[in-house]
């Protein structure tokens, strides 16, 4: 069996008296498309930030592409990338200038050709010369995704990639991610509130509540286990502590 692309064991993060992540274990298979689900404050963003090395865990281990992230993050960072609505890019730079900057940071070989390629793939060649600050949310999401794809990442970490997007743009982004994952075999870990998005995209779901994993499995299997019709109903059961006995099974 192949070793997982991401393996998290006994992961804990405490901020003073608040425990944001409370001893979680999960693995994402190489080439897998996995979702971290949970309400606000469940620990999704903190978990992704720890995997990226932005936050140091209080306890536990994180192994990414076979490397210990706490010891060797700079061996791993060139091979992964991320996108999040909680971070941004310099607004006074044009889209192309932002992408040129990041292409150099990631050591991309043919900068101009790569930028053209991602801009074409994500359908924004017409606003490469526009300043980033003048773009709409949907356009910024495409650019952020382009930045995340510049280094052909083996692992893509996406924190709420369709938050604040209109349904049409959100659907386009989901379709693109699905197609990208199928074409490249990249591993994708996605944090989301959007259940229909997760049902459509992900083969594996990890549901967090108050920093703990309360359910884990394939979306269909979770729906069956909880005897519900959709993942959203499962999520609401968990969020509202209904059918607690099922989760223990």
């Amino acid at each position, binding site marked *: 069996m192949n070793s997982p692309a991401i393996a998290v064991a006994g992961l804990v993060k405490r901020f003073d008296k608040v425990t944001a992540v409370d001893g979680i274990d999960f693995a994402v298979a190489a080439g897998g498309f996995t979702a971290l689900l949970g309400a606000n404050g469940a620990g999704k963003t903190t978990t992704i930030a720890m995997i990226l*090395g932005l936050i140091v865990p209080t306890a536990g281990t994180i192994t990414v592409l076979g490397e210990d992230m706490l010891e060797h993050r700079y061996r791993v960072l060139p091979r992964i990338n991320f996108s999040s609505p909680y*971070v941004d890019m310099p607004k006074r730079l044009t889209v192309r200038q932002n992408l040129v900057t990041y292409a150099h*940071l990631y*050591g991309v070989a043919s900068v101009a050709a790569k930028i053209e390629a991602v801009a074409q793939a994500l359908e924004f060649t017409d606003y490469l010369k526009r300043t980033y600050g003048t773009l709409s949310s949907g356009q910024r999401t495409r650019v952020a995704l382009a930045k995340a794809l510049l280094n052909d990442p083996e692992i893509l970490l996406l924190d709420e990639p369709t938050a604040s997007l209109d349904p049409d743009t959100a659907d386009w982004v989901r379709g693109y991610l699905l197609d990208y994952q199928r074409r*490249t075999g990249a591993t994708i870990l996605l944090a989301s509130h959007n259940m229909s998005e997760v049902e459509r995209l992900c083969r594996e779901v990890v549901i967090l509540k108050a920093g703990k994993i309360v359910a884990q499995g394939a979306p269909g299997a979770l729906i069956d286990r909880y005897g519900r019709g959709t993942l959203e109903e499962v999520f609401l059961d968990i969020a509202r502590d209904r059918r607690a006995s099922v989760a223990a099974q």
Partner: protein
Amino acid sequence: MSAIRPRSAGHPLRRMWGLFLRHYYVSAGSWTRLVEMIYWPTVQVVIWGFITEFLYTNSSFVARAFGVLLAGALLWDILFRGQLGVAVSFLEEIWSRNLAQLFTSPLRPAEYIASLMALSLVRTLLGLAPAAALASAFFGFNVAELGLSLIVFFFNLIVMGWAIAMVVCGLVLRYGLGAENLAWALMFALAPICGIYYPISVLPEWLQAVSAGLPASYVFEGMRAVLVDKTVRFDLMVQAAALNLVYLVLGIGAFVAFFRNARIRGQLVHVGE
């Protein structure tokens, strides 16, 4: 796009160049920023140029060394612009919520610090060159009169500015944008005690002791030695350089410690919000 091939991190200089380009694009794309870069040093030179002309006939101190006040103004700006060049570049990342993006790329903190210093060097030179030309053209003071000492003065002052900027950046990481005013305020607190326009000996004794801990104090004393006494004080330059070494180690150490602490406290994700 094709299937994924494993990638290397690329060369550190390439990453530093990427960060340099990011700030070049910001400055080159904004005429207001370019003007701002040269505006304050030029205003300083104009003010001190006229004060010098007035005092030349009314003060024996200035009469003995015509350019001593203008040289002080120009050298002070090296220190101030050097510090600001690093601190503002860092603040730009926070204002644009770009810090987390940078530190999830292969860019290492040491490369980041080196890039900020290179940016500061370029910004300081670009800002001061027109002011120095103005001092020569309109007030008859050529900063090159300081001779080779000027190079030593320049690097001592800019390194001190970098060291202080590192602490300011660390404090912003720790305390958020509430600490950003330190980027401007801290240097002005040092200005009265490092003897820019007057000898350290005019300070009260207890302030002279504080002044002795500042590399800039030795530079400004050295500047007056060149212009007033026509002597090059190597002892002062060595003292400034030795102190700067300590400052730089402490400054970078403070930034690294604050950076580690920010990763523990989760502030890299939220700083600037």
